[in-house]
């Protein structure tokens, strides 16, 4: 203690000495780039200890000589040096941007200097996130981080999103990145709820070493989200409004030549069989068909459907209505309003934001409404600093449960669906009079079939940090989260009229033996109701000792941590498949028994970890980082099991080497900075289904019948020796600044190997079980990433930055269970995704064509019928992963104008669109347009007598107007496999800062900004991809790459935004 006192005294004395030389008072004000005051900035004389703090309005006073240089700094702003020549200074601070000396928040909140870090990470700041004003944080990240794949697997007012870092490691387990909000380990559900504008930054920890301190949860990398903290200074209020339009960006390609009709009724060659395809298709025309294999549109007036009881019918021109499918969807409108308050004084800060987001989707009637509040505050009291953060979000959704899209595809293009919205009053829109015998009015289906749910999320944490000694900080964070959902699904009851059931006929002049009664009226809509609620509760406590201690020349930063984690979920649902009184959706209003179920889970973990960062004094260019963590997990726990079966230790090391500091001679005008990094890491993972250790006995299907109980033996057999799996990862990389820091380059290469995966292996059912849960299998995953940032222009009024990111990722299944070479994820019987030994996964397999031996790509047809022959064997079509990803972004600022955009390319795999099958079935697909006699293109047949392959130029397909498409082409699923590449303009934004002079006059605002923006304004895709957005998938599980009508068509969004600061 004495030493410290002495040095302090010396410092004071020194100051006194300086003061005596030509010192006068300097006053000034500190503002940010927008002209708003920056409170509590520190003003320090360079090379001296004399300092002063600005007041909350940013005004300061300091005594300084005219020759002195002032260093002015404030939290969140870059330090600036100003000569104290004048006695009155106006200082403008600029917000801190990523620079090499930046402090990065890494795993478990440990702050590190960028140059100390020996692994790859990326930081995305608020400005980059809100460019496209995306209401969802994950979508705002798409294309902005190399190695990060954001999949919007479904589009609706509640989009399903999947976030994967550096590809897939686990064959059947979870591959999604961990989401950490202000230090708390949460789940991806939170991503849909957080207001992107509340996010200060997202640090993306890509590899195992980066996220290893999160334990098993971090094995897939982590998104570390830091929410905004109030700026010190006087109260700042900002208000922002965005109004956003959403429309279908593209639909599959439709044929516009043929209307309703189906199969020809006379068997081939039978009595009266017409030989002309055109004549047959005239015969095929039906007024009530969902299929679109009728004759060519001719503009004549024809009845749509059957007669009403009064004999009337819908008589409309038989001709294509342009863009009718697109018109069936709405233009969505959404509005976002938010207001935030922030401020603070020398020792405390606060931030409060309130947001409301209302979305009306493209499917008429679909809407969502989200309101969120976030409060964050901090306070320093001497050695103690505390911070508190709480967020509450409530979101309500009202969506259709019907397959609106499929219903539209089953409607011929001569039917004006836009006139069918009012099905309650319009007799030809009502199910009792709607034209289509097989598929109901899409508007009716979507109106009666509703999913309504409300999510409430409360999430918060309380941090305490106590600086017990200059070298020791004690830190604790308690975080809790609760998600709850209450849901009611209902189907409205509808009883068909007797006329619809058995009376309605096709007008006599058009009747072709069509009988009476509307086919679909056979079964009434019974109505149903399901009521469900679920809750998820997570508690996470982290206790840390942070030690900063030098041992002679060795400088050490050590963090010792102790982590506790508990997650509890409960969900329960009850329902009835029939309701008695219409429109009353309560399970008590039912006939028969209640259906329902319940599920509860609890999991707990604890872990100890250490993170040690060491370097030698005067050799700070070489940093070693060691990490270790010991975890114990309830997922593998049984009182009868040995400790090494449920607890495990893992560790890693990372080395960073700043080349330009070690050898200053390397520094030149073109090379400013170079850092090399490498890391090795082994990570444990408790990737086992909850309660996977037990064979379960559950109720048999439909049991109990009254008092009769029935149980069944579970089908998944657990191996007795199950234990956690391990993932090892190595990574090499480098960071370089070139050409006077104008060019920044970051490259990495990594390889991950995961062994002993806990896999649900398909075993033969003849064993009595279908699956075995066992540690088995090995997977390699590797790739590289390149990030290039270039300051293209830096002029007084002009600033232009561009960035380019490229990443490649692939994986390979090294081993599976002995004797098993592949297994299926799911999909369709004739088109599904698989794990295949020795290949990357998932692999798409479909049935397909038989090809000629000559390698000419000719497809085998039947020598008699000319129809393509389906090869029922499931053949590999390639990986569904997009292995290559490129992101390109540009930020241009000219005076008050800002123009930004981000684009993304993904590709390198294949996809399978079941929509293709649906559209061939309905005859709405453009590819079904060829309905006159023709030879199946690129085909051959096997000559029945010689047995030789003959190029087919002579055998026409038998019934090109129907049989070719529906009975043959439709069932060959290779037809719907296409490359999965796309280029999307993810977001684009043009904004204008209203000049400060103008704003000031208002005396209300301190700054204002207006912007127009768009998201996904254009999408380029493969010319063979007639179908949809390759990002879409029918599942958010691992077996991605298959899409169907369950995903509404892709959309583009555009809107405008206004922003005021008071």
């Amino acid at each position, binding site marked *: 203690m004495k030493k410290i006192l002495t040095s302090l005294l010396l410092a004071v004395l020194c100051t006194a000495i300086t003061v005596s030389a030509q010192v006068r008072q300097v006053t000034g004000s500190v503002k940010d780039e927008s002209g708003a005051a920056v409170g509590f900035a520190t003003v320090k004389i360079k090379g001296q200890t004399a300092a002063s703090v600005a007041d909350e309005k940013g005004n300061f006073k300091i005594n300084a000589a005219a020759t002195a240089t002032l260093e002015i700094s404030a939290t969140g702003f870059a330090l600036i040096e100003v000569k104290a020549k004048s006695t009155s200074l106006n200082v403008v601070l600029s917000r801190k941007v990523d620079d090499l000396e930046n402090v990065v928040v890494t795993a478990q909140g440990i702050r590190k200097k960028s140059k100390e870090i020996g692994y790859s990470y990326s930081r995305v700041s608020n400005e980059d996130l809100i460019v496209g004003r995306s209401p969802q944080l994950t979508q705002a990240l798409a294309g902005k981080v190399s190695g990060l794949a954001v999949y919007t697997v479904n589009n609706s007012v509640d989009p399903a999103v999947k976030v994967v870092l550096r590809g897939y490691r686990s064959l059947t387990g979870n591959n999604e990145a961990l989401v950490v909000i202000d230090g708390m380990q949460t789940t991806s559900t939170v991503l849909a709820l957080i207001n992107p504008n509340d996010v200060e930054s997202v640090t993306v920890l890509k590899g195992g070493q980066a996220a290893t301190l999160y334990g098993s949860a971090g094995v897939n990398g982590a998104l570390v989200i830091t929410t905004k903290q109030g700026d010190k200074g006087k109260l700042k209020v900002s208000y922002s409004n965005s109004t956003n339009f959403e429309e279908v960006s593209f639909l599959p390609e439709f044929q516009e030549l043929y209307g309703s009709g189906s199969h020809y009724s006379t068997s081939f060659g039978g009595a009266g069989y017409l030989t002309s395809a055109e004549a047959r298709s005239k015969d095929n025309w039906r007024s009530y068909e969902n299929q679109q294999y009728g004759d060519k549109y001719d503009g004549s007036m024809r009845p749509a459907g059957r007669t009403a009881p009064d004999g009337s019918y819908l008589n409309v021109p038989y001709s294509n209505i342009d863009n009718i499918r697109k018109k069936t969807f709405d233009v969505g409108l959404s509005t976002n309003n938010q207001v935030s308050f922030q401020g603070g004084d020398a020792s405390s800060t606060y931030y409060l934001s309130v947001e409301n987001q209302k979305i009306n989707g493209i499917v008429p009637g679909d809407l969502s409404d989200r309101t969120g509040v976030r409060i964050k505050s901090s306070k320093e009291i001497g050695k103690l600093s505390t911070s508190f953060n709480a967020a509450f979000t409530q979101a309500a959704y009202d969506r259709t449960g019907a397959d609106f899209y499929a219903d539209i595809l089953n409607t011929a293009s001569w039917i004006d669906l836009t006139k069918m919205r009012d099905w309650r009053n319009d007799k030809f829109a009502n199910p009792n009079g709607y034209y289509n015998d097989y598929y109901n009015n899409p508007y009716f289906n979507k109106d009666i079939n509703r999913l309504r749910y409300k999510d409430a999320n409360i999430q918060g944490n309380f941090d305490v940090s106590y600086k017990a000694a200059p070298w020791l900080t004690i830190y604790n964070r308690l975080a809790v989260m609760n998600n709850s959902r209450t849901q009611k699904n209902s189907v409205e009851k509808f009883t068909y009229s007797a006329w619809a059931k058995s009376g309605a006929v096709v007008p006599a002049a058009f009747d072709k033996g069509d009988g009476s009664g509307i086919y679909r009226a056979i079964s009434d809509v019974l109505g149903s109701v399901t009521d469900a609620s679920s809750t998820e509760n997570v508690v996470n406590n982290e206790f840390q000792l942070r030690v900063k201690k030098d041992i002679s020349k060795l400088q050490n930063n050590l963090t010792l941590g102790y982590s506790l984690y508990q997650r509890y979920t409960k969900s329960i649902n009850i329902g009835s498949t029939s309701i008695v009184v219409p429109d009353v959706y309560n399970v008590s209003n039912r006939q028969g028994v209640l259906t329902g179920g319940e599920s509860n889970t609890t999991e707990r973990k604890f872990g100890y970890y250490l993170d040690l960062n060491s370097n030698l004094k005067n050799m700070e260019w070489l940093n070693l980082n060691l990490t270790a963590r010991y975890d114990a997990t*309830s997922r593998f726990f049984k009182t009868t099991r040995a400790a090494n079966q449920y607890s495990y230790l893992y560790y890693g090391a990372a080395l960073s080497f700043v080349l330009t500091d070690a050898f200053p001679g390397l520094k030149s005008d073109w090379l400013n900075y170079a850092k090399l990094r490498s890391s090795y890491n082994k990570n444990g993972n408790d990737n086992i289904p909850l309660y996977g250790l037990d064979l379960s006995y559950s109720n048999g299907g439909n049991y109990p019948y009254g008092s009769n109980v029935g149980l069944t033996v*579970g089908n998944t057999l657990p191996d007795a020796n199950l234990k956690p799996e391990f993932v090892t990862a190595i990574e090499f990389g480098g960071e370089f600044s070139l050409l006077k820091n104008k060019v920044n380059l970051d490259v990495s290469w990594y390889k991950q190997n995961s062994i002993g995966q806990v896999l649900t292996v398909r075993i033969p059912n003849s064993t009595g079980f279908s699956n075995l849960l066992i540690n088995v299998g090995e997977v390699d995953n590797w790739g590289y990433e390149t990030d290039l940032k270039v300051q293209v222009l830096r002029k007084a009024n002009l600033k232009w930055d561009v960035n380019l990111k490229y990443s490649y990722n692939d994986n390979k299944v090294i081993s599976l269970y002995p004797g098993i070479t592949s297994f299926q994820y799911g999909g369709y019987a004739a088109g599904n995704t698989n794990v295949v030994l020795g290949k990357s996964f998932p692999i798409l397999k479909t049935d397909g064509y038989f090809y000629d031996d000559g390698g000419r790509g000719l497809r085998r047809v039947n020598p008699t019928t000319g129809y393509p022959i389906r090869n029922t064997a499931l053949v590999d079509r390639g990986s569904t992963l997009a292995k290559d990803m490129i992101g390109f972004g540009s930020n241009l600022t000219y005076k008050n104008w800002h123009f930004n955009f981000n684009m993304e390319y993904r590709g390198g795999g294949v996809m399978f669109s079941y929509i293709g099958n649906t559209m061939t079935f309905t005859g709405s697909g453009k590819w079904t347009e060829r309905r006159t006699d023709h030879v199946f293109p690129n085909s051959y047949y096997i000559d029945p007598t010689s047995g030789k392959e003959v190029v087919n130029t002579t055998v026409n397909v038998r019934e090109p107007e129907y049989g070719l498409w529906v009975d043959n082409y439709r069932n060959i699923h290779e037809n719907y496999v296409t490359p999965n590449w796309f280029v999307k303009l993810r977001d684009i934004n043009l904004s204008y800062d209203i000049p400060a002079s103008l704003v000031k006059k208002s005396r209300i605002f301190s700054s204002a900004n207006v912007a127009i923006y768009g998201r996904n304004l254009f999408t380029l895709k493969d010319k063979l991809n007639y179908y949809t957005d390759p990002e879409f998938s029918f599942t958010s599980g691992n077996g991605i790459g298959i899409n169907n009508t369950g995903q509404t068509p892709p959309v583009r969004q555009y809107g405008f935004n206004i922003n005021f600061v008071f």
Partner: protein
Amino acid sequence: MKKTYLYIAAFLVLVSTGCKKDYLNVNTNPNSLPTATPSFVISNAMNVSASSLVSPNELGMMWSGHWTQSNGYILSTTTFQYQFTNNDYNYWDGTYDNLNDYKFVLDNAVAYKQEYLLGPAKIMMAFNFQKLVDLYGNIPYTDALQGVKVLAPKFDDQKTVYENLITLLDGAIADLKKYPYESTNAGADIIFKGSNLNWIKFANSLKLRILMRQSRISGRDSYITAEINKINTEGSGFITGTEVGVNPGYNASAGQINPFYNAYGYSETGARIATNNYPRITEFAVNTLKATGDTIRLKRVAYAVGNEDGANPGVSLKPELTSNYVGTPFGVGSGFLPTNTSAVGPAFLTKGVFNKPFVIMTAAEIQFNLAEAKQRYGAAVTLAGTAKSYYEEGVKQSYRALGASTTGLAALLVSGVNDVDFDASTNKLNAIAYQKWFALGYFNGLEAWSEYRKSGYPLTPQSRAVTTTARPLRLYYPGTELGSNGANVNAQGTIDPLSSRIFWDID
């Protein structure tokens, strides 16, 4: 400084004592039971053995020429063009899953003092294993259902499996004689309500089914007759005058009504189900019944065009004149809209009759098996009746099972019509085969298809959707088994469902 060491000490104490094993002891599954009582398991297993027959019975009804699909649907190319793969018609996985529940009963009945379940479990296993052989030929039997002990079960020869099933049933009968059903637990027996005698009769009937399925294999006669005579010696006899049916307590609740009624008829609220429009009686079946003067049974298995009168359950909407019964040609894709053709009739689908037992064996089938045995083996089998008496009893039982009026039956049996009047029939075995084919229809479609494959009679028309003469003779081994037990599946050779025959299907 000392203070900070205190903090460190406190930290160490905290982390070393904070977490005990108790903290982790939350890994007991709260969502399902850790074990089960055999009587509960067998109840569900019996229910599944019945309900899982709906789908294969439908296929059997199609491929035996009883049913086709209506033209309100796009023609199924898998069913009617025989374009099916090893991913279609997987009746393997579910059956083995079901068998494993019976295996659980066998393994645990003694421990739970429920030995009386051993016999029923073995009988139901034999029932299901026979189904597997009839669909797939060689199957895992001795290696099957061993869990982790045998993860790649070898396949057994189908004929040997058949023989093993007879042994299994003998064992079941011995168990049933030894362990009487506990009356308090009789409710768990959703087939015979705890009647050991009926179980033995069912075992005998099943043995007869298994034996007679092999009747056309040359050189098999002595084995079959010896086994039939053993049944006779055992003395309990066969199921007579009633069907073997499963009823867990069907009631008017979603999922709990008779599965056949639920698949093609009405929902629990009495609303007609969309698939009521799916199955259609074939033109062959309708026309044959008309031609043989058997219109009483026609009007029980089919409704007149226009279907059932919703207001008058069990009665057609249109007059029940023979001319109003219209069949649909097998495999035709268009031109026969549901409104213009006959649907499944009142014997099976009468609005409101939702809780009949699900029949797994009919009394008529047993009589026809006896008739065939007597016809083929004469005095070599010690059966009391004659081929004719068994045959006529079979037809009578069919009438009874369909709820058909027997008023004209006596006259019909002496009408002189081939395949109806036994004496007048040119080929007695064909007459038995035809009547058995018809009597099995609707109840046991899968058995109808097996009998059709075995006897090749009656010769139903080929599907209109194919140009060749080949028909399905079996199913592929499912892709799931191929993927996980590949070597053993491949050891069975190349399977072509249109030409590979089950061992009892000799031509």
